[in-house]
């Protein structure tokens, strides 16, 4: 991705965040209680990006509870998405915290901002990293044990039939406008899938992509396409990731496969996505012990998948999921904070 500053959006996002802060200020002065105010001094107001996918949403709500109950911060959750939020953080220093930033796609501008001291990396929120690739349902993998790699799958267009193109197989693309759409288009080209009788099916949105998996799974039909972990869909519907069969070619991936103008994409595995918590310089300096928490907070994909699956089964919101996690798995999160803070958080649940 070449990076150009997207100023109008950055201004808009930060304006929203700022106006939200203004409201908080009034509320805070009205409800000032002496000892709590002293703690709030140490942390102050903090805006946390609530990204629009499930794992990030839970994490944002966990941060919300721990930062507000444990550290006395005034937390404001603001809706976000990878590109707009990180751009706003770089350009305007708002919001303060992106709990789950998938940084592969924005590494260049982000590293530049970190070098300049505008932003800081905190914990690697997902210890195992994010996994991307092409997946097939488990029942297809079980019925066809010979399919292990992308190449194997592409030999069988009949197993993954396309509804609208008779006699062809379908590869479900990543939602429009996401970075993975570019990598999937290029992978489709690199593997010569069209020649092997496949079409690339644009799913349009995450809802469309998830819907197509759900539909295939309920009816035990073939499905092949891009997906990523950790996600509740993978907790709910068991899928098998196809081995790319080739190692991750960093050079080619960054210069060609991840770009729209890529004449000769190569067969390469996706990078293990690094997922960090990113904080602004302002909060890094003003946050005090709360920042130390953000530097500690990291969890594994198994924990996340289990939590997301619980949320899906109960149709729980991010806030419900966060409360459930904090109540049921103190052994995971009490290591992130000091014992006193852990007590405060527990008392608030």
């Amino acid at each position: 991705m070449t990076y150009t500053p997207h100023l109008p959006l950055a201004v808009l996002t930060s304006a929203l965040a700022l106006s939200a802060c203004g409201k908080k200020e009034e509320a805070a002065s009205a409800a000032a209680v002496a000892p709590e105010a002293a703690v709030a001094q140490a942390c102050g107001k903090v805006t946390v990006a609530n990204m629009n996918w499930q794992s990030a949403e839970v994490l944002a709500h966990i941060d919300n509870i721990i930062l507000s109950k444990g550290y006395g911060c005034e937390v404001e959750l603001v809706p976000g998405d990878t590109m707009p939020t990180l751009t706003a953080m770089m350009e305007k220093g708002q919001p303060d915290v992106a709990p789950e930033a998938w940084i592969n796609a924005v590494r260049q501008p982000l590293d530049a901002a970190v070098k300049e001291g505008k932003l800081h990396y905190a914990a690697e929120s997902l210890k195992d990293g994010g996994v991307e690739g092409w997946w097939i349902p488990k029942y297809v993998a079980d019925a066809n044990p010979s399919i292990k790699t992308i190449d194997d799958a592409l030999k069988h267009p009949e197993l993954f039939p396309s509804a609208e193109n008779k006699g062809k197989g379908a590869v479900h693309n990543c939602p429009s406008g996401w970075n993975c759409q570019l990598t999937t288009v290029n992978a489709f080209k690199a593997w010569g899938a069209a020649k092997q009788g496949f079409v690339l099916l644009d799913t349009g949105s995450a809802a469309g992509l998830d819907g197509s998996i759900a539909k295939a799974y309920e009816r035990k039909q073939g499905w092949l396409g891009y997906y990523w972990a950790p996600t509740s869909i993978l907790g709910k519907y068991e899928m098998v990731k196809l081995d790319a069969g080739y190692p991750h070619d960093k050079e080619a991936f960054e210069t060609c496969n991840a770009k729209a103008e890529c004449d000769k994409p190569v067969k390469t595995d996706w990078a293990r996505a690094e997922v960090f918590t990113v904080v602004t310089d302002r909060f890094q300096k003003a946050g005090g012990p709360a920042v130390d928490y953000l530097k500690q907070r990291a969890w594994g994909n198994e924990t996340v998948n289990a939590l997301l699956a619980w949320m899906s089964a109960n149709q729980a919101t991010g806030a419900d999921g966060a409360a459930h996690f904090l109540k049921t798995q103190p052994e995971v999160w009490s290591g992130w904070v000091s014992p006193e803070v852990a007590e405060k958080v527990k008392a608030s649940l």
Partner: protein
Amino acid sequence: MAWLKEFPSLGSDALGEIRRTVDGAFRGFTREHGEMMERLFDPLRDFLLASERLLTQSPWPFVVGGIALIAWLASRSLKIVVGTVITLLLIGFFGMWGDTMKTISMIFVCTVVALVVGLPLGIAMSRWDRLQRVINPTLDVMQTMPSFVYLIPVVMLLGIGRVPGLIAVVIYAIPPVIRFTNLGIRLVDKDLLEAADAFGSSTWQKMHQVQLPLALPTIMAGVNQTIMLSLAMVVIASMIGVQGLGQPVLKAISNQYFTMGIFNGLAIVGIAIIFDRVSQAYGKRLQRHLEVVHG
């Protein structure tokens, strides 16, 4: 006084139970009948594919010529025809030809489906007041219910692609056809109906030769509205995999590609204006024609 502060609601357990039951029932339904539902919509899918193939695979001069011819036949206005051709050429020149043709084909099929379903409903509604009382609130629900609420169940049933997109568009765009047909027929002068009765017309003759022709300009206004509403749904439909101008708009939205968004947005506006002017001119011509006949 706790009940004053907190709204007496079903507990989260009961609500969760309701959600799980309804979802489970729906999943059961998809498993049982999904296949059959999909077969049911096969003819529609083939119609969509055929119309798209016609527009995207014919040489572009034919397509431009064909659309210009239709515009001429409908409007008999040189200004509209020239405007249409220029708009299409500009769209093509800016590299949006393929997507625009896909969108036009989608809108065309949606309009045809809306007419085929909507006209009979509107006529029936004008004849039976009781039916009108049932259909009107239904149309209100269809127009106000956020699309994704029914899109996801439709995707679960039919998968992603053109057919669920078409269903979403038609649900949103069909109400004007129904309402205006109903209204147009109801507005026909009672004296004229009496005259028709005096000449001994049967119900069918009255409908076919008096009411429908006189209601036609109003119905055309409804058709015009339906086309406009289907264009408004292009972006939503692209979120479940309908190809066309909606896809680049989505891409532009999530990446802040300002220019790309404006270009594709303007292309949608361009087709909207073409459709609007042509169908309006046709409606007006119908009216003029009728005035001459009736002196």
